[in-house]
C-alpha cells in the first residue's frame, strides 16, 4: 500500500491535529488530576475505534464491547494484584501471599488460572488474546449461523450481562462487585504517583495512535471496502466468492483486541477494575461514544469518547440525577440530526467553510460518504 492510498492529505491533517491535542495541548493545560481523567476517557477511545470499524464500516452492532474492555482490564488487574499481594504486604491474612479478596472468601491457595498472571509478558499477551478468544467464540457461533443485525446486538448484550453476573457471583476468584482494587506497582514502579500517571497518559496516547494506524490500515485495505460492501449488500459479497462470516469474525476480534488494550490501560491509570465497567450500561455508553464521534470515522470515535466522557464528568458533578437522561437525549439527538456525528458535522459543515475561508478550491473528500444511510 502506498503512502497516499494509506492516508489522504486531509486525514493526515486530522491525525496531526489529534496528536497535537493529545500530546501537547491537554498535558500543558491540565493539572495531573485532570490529565489522568482525560487519560481514562482515552481508554474508551480504543473501544470506540473498534466500534467504528465493526459497526460504522461493517454494520455489526455490538452492545457488549464492555466485555472485551473488562477482560483486558481484568487481565492487567490480575497481574498488578498479584504483584501487590506479596507475603510481606499480606502478612496479616490467614493465607499470606494471595490477593486479599481471596483470603476474605476463605480461599487458601491461588487458583490455577491465576498462576500465569505472575508473569508480565503472559499478562500482556492475555490482555489482547483473552478478549480476542471470546470474540472469536461469539463471532464464530453467530456469524457462521448468519445471526446478524439486532439479534446479534441483543446476544452481545446478553454476554455483557452474563460476564457481570459471573464476576459478581465468583467473589473469591474475581473480587466480586468491588472488583480488583488496591493495585500499587508495575514491576516495582509505583503507578499511584502523579509522575507515573503522567507517564501512563503518554503511553496510553502512543498506544492509541498505534491502534489508530492499524485501524486506518484496515480501513484503507481491500478489507475495509469489503466491510462497507458487506454492510450494504451482504449477499452480493457472498456471491462474489467471499466467506462473509470470516470477515465479520476478523473485524469483531480486532475490535475486541482494541477494547482489551483500552481496558488494560484503564486499569493502569485508574488503579482498579470492577464489574461496573463490564456490564450492559457501560457497553451501551461505548456505542454512544462512537455514535457521537461519528461511527464512520476512527478519528471521530476518539473525539466522541473524549467529549461524552468530559461532559459526563462535568454534568454529573453538577446534576448527578440528570446525567443519564442527558446522555440518552444526546444519543437521540445525534441519531436524528447528526447521523454521522461530530465527524459528519466537521466534514459537512465546518471544513467546507474553512476551506472557503482559506480560499482553497473545494475538493470532495472521497473518504467521508456524505449522507450515508443511517443504520
Amino acid at each position, binding site marked *: *500500500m502506498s503512502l497516499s*492510498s494509506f492516508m489522504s492529505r486531509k486525514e493526515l491533517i486530522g491525525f496531526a491535529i489529534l496528536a497535537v491535542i493529545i500530546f501537547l495541548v491537554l498535558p500543558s493545560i491540565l493539572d495531573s488530576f485532570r490529565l489522568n481523567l482525560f487519560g481514562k476517557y482515552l481508554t474508551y477511545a480504543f473501544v470506540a475505534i473498534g466500534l467504528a470499524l465493526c459497526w460504522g464500516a461493517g454494520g455489526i452492532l455490538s452492545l457488549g464491547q464492555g466485555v472485551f474492555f473488562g477482560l483486558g482490564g481484568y487481565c492487567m488487574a490480575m497481574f498488578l494484584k498479584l504483584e501487590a499481594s506479596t507475603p510481606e504486604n499480606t502478612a496479616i491474612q490467614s493465607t499470606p501471599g494471595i490477593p486479599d479478596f481471596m483470603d476474605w472468601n476463605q480461599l487458601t491457595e491461588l487458583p490455577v488460572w491465576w498462576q500465569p498472571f505472575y508473569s508480565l509478558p503472559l499478562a500482556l499477551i492475555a490482555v489482547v488474546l483473552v478478549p480476542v478468544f471470546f470474540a472469536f467464540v461469539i463471532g464464530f457461533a453467530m456469524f457462521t449461523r448468519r445471526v446478524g443485525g439486532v439479534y446479534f446486538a441483543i446476544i452481545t448484550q446478553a454476554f455483557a450481562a452474563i460476564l457481570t453476573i459471573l464476576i459478581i457471583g465468583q467473589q473469591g476468584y474475581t473480587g466480586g462487585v468491588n472488583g480488583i482494587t488496591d493495585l500499587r506497582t508495575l514491576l516495582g514502579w509505583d503507578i499511584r504517583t502523579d509522575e507515573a500517571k503522567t507517564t501512563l497518559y503518554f503511553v496510553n496516547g502512543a498506544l492509541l495512535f498505534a491502534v489508530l494506524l492499524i485501524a486506518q*490500515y*484496515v480501513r484503507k*485495505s*481491500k*478489507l475495509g*471496502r*469489503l466491510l*462497507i*460492501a458487506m*454492510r*450494504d*449488500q451482504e*449477499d*452480493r*459479497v*457472498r*456471491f*462474489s*466468492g*467471499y*466467506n*462473509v462470516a*470470516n*470477515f465479520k469474525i*476478523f473485524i469483531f476480534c480486532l475490535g475486541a483486541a482494541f477494547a482489551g488494550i483500552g481496558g488494560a490501560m484503564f486499569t493502569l491509570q485508574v488503579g482498579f477494575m470492577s464489574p461496573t465497567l463490564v456490564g450492559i450500561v457501560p457497553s451501551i455508553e461505548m456505542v454512544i461514544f462512537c455514535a457521537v464521534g461519528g461511527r464512520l470515522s476512527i478519528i471521530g470515535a476518539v473525539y466522541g469518547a473524549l467529549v461524552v466522557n468530559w461532559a459526563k464528568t462535568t454534568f454529573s458533578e453538577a446534576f448527578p440525577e440528570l446525567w443519564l437522561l442527558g446522555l440518552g437525549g444526546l444519543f437521540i439527538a445525534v441519531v436524528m440530526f447528526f447521523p454521522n456525528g461530530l465527524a459528519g458535522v466537521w466534514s459537512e459543515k465546518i471544513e467546507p467553510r474553512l476551506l472557503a475561508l482559506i480560499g482553497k478550491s473545494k475538493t470532495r473528500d*472521497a473518504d467521508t*460518504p456524505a449522507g*450515508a444511510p443511517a443504520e
Partner: protein
Amino acid sequence: MTERFLLSVEDLTVSFDGFKAVNDLSFYVEPNECRVIIGPNGAGKTTVLDLICGRTKASGGSVKFKGKELLTMREDQIVNVGVGRKFQTPSVYEDLTVFENLELSYPKGHSVFGALMFQRDDPVKARIQEIAETIFLDDQLDEKAAFLSHGQKQWLEIGMLLIQDPELLMLDEPVAGMSVAERKKTAELLNRIIQDRAVIVIEHDMGFVADIATRVTVLHQGQTLSEGSMDRVQSDPKVIEVYLGH
C-alpha cells in the same frame, strides 16, 4: 454421461412449508450453451437459480457442476468453482465507486489475510479498465455506484460477474426495467459475453430470448413443461396454453 454436461440438475426439489416451488426438476447445460428459462410468474425460475448458487437449500436431488456436487457447498465455494450469479434487482455496493465495485469482484485476495494484503497493481487496474469498457462505464470509474442509473447499475453488476470470469453465468432478468436504448445496448453486451461460457438466463422479453437462446426451458409449477429450441417451444401447444397464449 455427466462428462458431456457442464451442469447437471437432477431430481431437484425444494419445498417451502409443504409447497413444492421446484419439483423433481432435471435439466442439463452443455459448455458454451445459452439456456433461457421462461415461464409464468411463480413457476420457480428464480428459485432454480437460487438453488444452483446455494442461496436456497434444496430438499432433495443433485446439482453437479463439472462433476462436483454444488448442493453441499457454501455460496462462496460455489462462486470459486466458477458459477456466477446476477440478481434480479441490481445489487451493487452503492457507497463504493464503480472501480471499487469491480475491484472487490476481482478473483484475488478473497481470504481475510489476502484482503488485508491485496495490492491494486497494474494487472488489476488493466483488467478493471477492460471490463469497464465492456460494460460502457469506463467514464464513470470514480463515481459512486449510488449515482448510476438503473440500467448502469445492471451493467455494473454484469461487469462484477465478468471480472470473475465464471464458466457458468446465471442472469436473472438482465433487461428488466431498462429503457429501449439501454435494452438494445444490454442485448449487445450479453451477446458478446455469452460467447465463451455457458449462460443461464431468466427472461420474459421473447424477442430478446429468440435472439440469444441456444435452448429454452419452459418452467411451470416447478416442473419442466417443455424444452428445446425456441421454435419448438413456441409451437408446443402446452406452452401456448399456460404461457405464450395470452
